[in-house]
């Protein structure tokens, strides 16, 4: 097949645009393992910076993972029942509540942090603990969990499933945990990955809320760029990348699986 100049010009443009995005990523990653970034690759490759980052910021990295997990637990416990109520008992009040819930996504993280500081800044034990940051993260991520779970619940005719289960003698809790939750699993999983990813990467709200003892991963990154060698900042990015990539890939895979789950169509040839 002969291809004309149009094909090649489009291919060229696509490659240039991809490089525009990919090259900085590669440069940054390389900088993290280069002995001296100002001399370039000729100075040799090393894992020294990665280890140095681990020595300096292991605390932040572990704290971030801890907060992300705690955030996940809270959003699961609060978000799944909330989504259920939103879908099962829609009313004007519930609509209003849903809007309120989504508000933290719309307003700047800084403003949200400021509100938390003004309200609870005086409660010293709480203010200086990681729970303070957790509060901010829950406010910010809860709507993502609720939306994700509610979307799946809205698509599955919960009322009918519950009536079916109830006719077989199942009480509310048995229906909820035996039928509703397992069938909402794709939404719960997608929401969970979203919450963990957002919590690990959250910067602007966390930056306002943190204390020197409650530094999270992204706050540590800003700190590293601001006050350390460029190689250390880049090595830090590398660690961040390694942590967050599997989550993003899992999220993508999950979304694809949801799309592929096709419904069987009944036809006249159907013999049973």
């Amino acid at each position, binding site marked *: 097949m002969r291809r004309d100049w149009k094909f090649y010009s489009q291919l060229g443009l696509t490659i240039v645009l991809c490089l525009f995005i990919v090259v900085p990523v590669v440069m940054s990653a390389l900088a993290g393992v280069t002995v001296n970034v100002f001399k370039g690759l000729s100075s040799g490759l090393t894992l020294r910076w990665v280890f140095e980052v681990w020595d300096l910021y292991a605390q932040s990295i572990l704290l971030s993972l801890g907060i992300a997990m705690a955030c996940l637990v809270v959003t699961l416990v609060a978000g799944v029942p909330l989504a259920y109520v939103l879908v099962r008992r829609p009313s004007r009040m519930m609509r209003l509540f849903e809007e309120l819930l989504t508000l933290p996504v719309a307003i700047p993280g800084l403003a949200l942090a400021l509100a938390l500081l003004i309200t609870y800044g005086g409660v010293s034990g709480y203010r200086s603990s990681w729970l303070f940051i957790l509060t901010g993260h829950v406010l910010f991520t809860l709507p993502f969990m609720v939306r994700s779970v509610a979307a799946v619940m809205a698509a599955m005719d919960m009322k009918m499933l519950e*009536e079916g289960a*109830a006719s*077989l003698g199942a009480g509310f809790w048995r229906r909820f945990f035996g039928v509703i939750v397992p*069938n909402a699993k794709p939404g719960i999983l997608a929401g969970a990955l979203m919450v963990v990813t957002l919590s690990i990467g959250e910067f602007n709200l966390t930056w306002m809320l943190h204390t020197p003892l409650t530094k999270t991963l992204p706050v540590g990154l800003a700190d590293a760029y601001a006050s350390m060698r460029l190689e250390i900042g880049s090595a830090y990015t590398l660690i961040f990348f390694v942590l967050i990539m599997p989550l993003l890939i899992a999220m993508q895979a999950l979304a694809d699986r949801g799309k592929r789950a096709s419904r069987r169509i009944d036809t*006249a040839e*159907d*013999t049973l």
Partner: protein
Amino acid sequence: MSTQIRLRNCAKTFADGTRALAPFDLTIEGGETIVLLGPSGCGKTTILRMIAGLEFPDAGGVISFDGDDVTRQSIEKRRVGMVFQSYALFPNMTVAENVAYGLKVHGVPSAERDARVDAMLEMMHIDMLADRRIDQLSGGQRQRVALARAIAVQPRVLLLDEPLTALDAKLRVRLRTEINALLRKLGITAVYVTHDQEEAMALGDRIVVMQKGEIAQIGTPREIYRKPQNPFVADFVGAANRMTGQMRDGRLHIGAHVFDAVDAFDPRHGAILDQGAVELYFRADGLSPCDLDEAHFTGRVEAVSYLGERLRLTVSGIGSQAVTIDTHADDVIEAGADVHCRVNADRLTVFPAVTAQS
């Protein structure tokens, strides 16, 4: 053995004030299959949901199963088997797990449970599907699973809410026959909701025809078909042709023709209708094509449809609206032709004419 269901003075008004059901009484005998028949919005599903415990009657209504008052009992406690139009199977479980669900809830020990599930699947001819996921099944297979699941727990009554509506015509007839055999075999009290007149006739020991939240008629399929008690029922069960006439001294006059031996009982007044204007409802067998010398009427053929075993004509010029008349499939009749026909007076259902003020 089978449970008798009694509904006394049951009415239903929804929260927004709309009256879904006028107060009614209904007794369903043990082992009987009763069909609630009517167009959508007539309240038939509301009655079914009341018996199930998914809706509660307005104050004053009483529902009892074999004399036990279950009016305030929730569905979980009533031991009713339900089959839904959209199946309501649990997608997170296999076929066998779906059928086992109710048994598990009732605490049936696992060995007995497995045996019961196997027996149910075998009875519904779906034993080879035991480990399939629900989304791998066809509509007909799904409805069999739903039936197996509902009867596995040995419910007191079986409630079926338009179970065949989502299936195609051929499958519907086949599954209908199977459900009929199943209900006879189990001897269970069953309430079946449908808008399909043929389905109702095939399945019901008795049929309750519903109209706008009220019971229009209760009777055996034969009574409903041959002796509809009001124009609504007549029209709904297929007697859609209409003519007007006059009763004079017990004889029916249509135009210049006079007919004897007409069953003109007016159920609303509990009396023989022997005087006054009447409306006549009839099916395609109420008139039949004939030669000119025996004809009562002559009309004009507007349309012809070939139905295989017969030819259906749409004829104008007889009565105020076009009527449908059946004739032999082999007859050659074209639209636009004149057709002579005879009235089969025994096939007419006579109602007093609706007067202008009523």
